[in-house]
């Protein structure tokens, strides 16, 4: 008899996600951050490799899986690529159901109707209390306020600084995220850079009040968030409350996908780290944000810790990007999933290496 720790082949992995993916073409842009994140997870299953710039290489189906059935926005069935260069995946196929509500995903994994289901970080505690086997990655997704350049309300640096100081990041982690994740003061998490502790995450309502009292121009800040993301909505509302307590004024505005230009002074964004390497991650973030007024920092992916810290400090000091919290990726796992590794930073779902055991 083969050892129980040695993987076995076969079976269909049933996956449920909340995002809706409308196109598998890497050239077709995502319409929501959730769709973009899901595509980042799906693409590595279909393509053989990735260039240093992050583009997927090879033909679709050259990766560990091939597309067998595709109902855009609803369901994707992948089958194992028998000739995958690094060896055939253990599971025969993967069925991904999209657009599933968080409550339904949780219920399905509890009842073993799904093998892997994405769980919002704020639901992790609830899931664990219901006996669901939960996998949580390192916190590698940054939630931040990004100010829109050229807006009269926020061109004054003091206005941006006041907002940053008024935000109670610990409360966001403790209450909204139910203690999942960690407050963010810098652009890299402590586990990656080792220097995140140098960036304050403390709320400073008194100082924020002083700064706002000095500002004579427009003070009301319109903060946009993704209308389809309930976590962003909760965080935006919390920021508005914190700002009000410090004498500021923040109005939240839901932004619908494809709404085009929106009358917002700042936006909440969620940005996953592209790599666990701090230099590489920061370089990719800077490339994604584009030029930041008043900042010339452009660290190389191979930069030393001092250079990385200096670049991070230069960006954060402009208050054009205000880090809020680091989120982990969380998954509920069915009882037959074996050899699951929480997704590594910069990597997609680990479906190639997991296998399905017998239900105990």
């Amino acid at each position: 008899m083969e050892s129980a720790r040695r993987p076995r082949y076969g079976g269909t992995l049933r996956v449920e996600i909340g995002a809706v993916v409308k196109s598998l073409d890497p050239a077709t842009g995502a319409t929501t951050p959730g769709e973009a994140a899901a595509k980042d997870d799906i693409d590595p299953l279909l393509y053989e490799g990735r260039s240093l710039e992050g583009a997927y290489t090879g033909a679709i189906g050259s990766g560990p899986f091939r597309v067998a059935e595709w109902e855009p926005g609803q369901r994707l069935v992948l089958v194992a690529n028998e000739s995958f260069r690094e060896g055939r995946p253990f599971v025969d196929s993967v069925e991904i159901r999209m657009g599933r509500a968080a409550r339904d995903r949780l219920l399905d994994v509890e009842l073993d109707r799904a093998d892997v289901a994405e769980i919002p970080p704020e639901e992790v505690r609830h899931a664990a209390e219901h006996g669901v086997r939960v996998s949580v990655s390192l916190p590698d997704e940054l939630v931040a306020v990004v100010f829109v350049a050229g807006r009269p309300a926020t061109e004054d640096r003091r206005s941006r600084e006041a907002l940053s100081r008024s935000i109670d990041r610990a409360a966001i982690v403790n209450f909204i995220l139910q203690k999942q994740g960690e407050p963010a003061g810098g652009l890299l998490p402590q586990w990656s850079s080792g220097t995140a502790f140098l960036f304050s995450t403390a709320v400073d309502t008194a100082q924020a009040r002083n700064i706002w009292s000095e500002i004579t121009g427009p003070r009301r800040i319109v903060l946009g968030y993704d209308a389809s993301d309930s976590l962003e909505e909760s965080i935006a509302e919390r920021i508005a409350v914190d700002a009000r307590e410090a004498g500021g004024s923040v109005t939240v505005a839901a932004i619908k996908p494809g709404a085009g230009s929106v009358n917002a002074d700042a936006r909440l964004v969620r940005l996953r780290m592209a790599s666990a390497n701090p230099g590489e991650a920061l370089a990719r973030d800077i490339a994604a944000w584009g030029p930041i007024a008043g900042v010339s920092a452009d660290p190389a992916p191979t930069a030393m810790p001092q250079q990385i810290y200096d670049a991070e400090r230069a960006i954060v000091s402009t208050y054009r990007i205000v880090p809020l919290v680091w989120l982990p990726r969380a998954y509920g796992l069915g009882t037959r999933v074996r050899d699951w590794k929480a997704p590594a930073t910069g990597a997609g779902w680990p479906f190639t290496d997991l296998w399905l055991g017998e239900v105990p």
Partner: protein
Amino acid sequence: MDERLRANLGGRHFRFVEAEPADTHLTVTLSEGTLGYLIVAQIRHGTEQQVAIFPVGRPEASRKPVAGVRLEDQLIWEQPGKVLDFALPQPEAGAPLKLIVLEVGRIVFYVRDQQQWQLDGSVTIPPLRPWLRAPRGYLDLSRGLADTTAALSGVECKGDFGHPETIQCSFVSQERAPWTLEQDWKSKNLASAGDAALISLSCEGRSIALATGSGDWTETDFVQGYEIGTLKGQQAMASGEPLELKGPVTALWPAEVGGRARAVVENLQTGNYEAHLVTATCSQ
């Protein structure tokens, strides 16, 4: 920690005095990131602050002697690609040390030159069937280098491994694969372990086996020495301290030299596959 640091510095003739008002404050923090350990110095002068960051190496943990089977670990080789097995054939007099690494699609030969392994050649193993995701492999040098076999899942390559051009590969049945035999022995003697290897060493008349943990390949692993009872039906007993490793042991085989085993480890920190030679000795 503060007390221990004070005691340690006191023992080195340092004197402690009360802090006097100072214009400049220095805070030193030992931190850690994915690039390694960092010493972070924050120098505050009024409202000004400077930060200096110095990367430092990671120290190796010290090991203490223990009773029972004592295990020593020697890292021979590491590489990003999957290693199925490896071997260090006994060198002929005056000849350089050789290393053979069995990979999924090839057998690679290295020679030791100036304290480093240098590539000496390789033999491609034809993909006689689609490669498995978790293929297994075994290098059998028990009949000497001139009659060596590299066994893989469904493929066998034989020849004089001192002359790689003689190596021939062919399709074979998996029924008598070495790991099938190992599994039979393990299920009778060390059923709860992961992989096991009976090595040519005995302590006080009892045979010694080495075995891995039984966790998933997502976890760090260990190699534990076991004393095999001489009576029929007697259970193997763990002996000595386990050898902790930085990832799962994906292969464990007895080496040709007595008291040794070859272990392949997937290092979860670096992602590399590592070839370790584990030496067991009897200790009182």
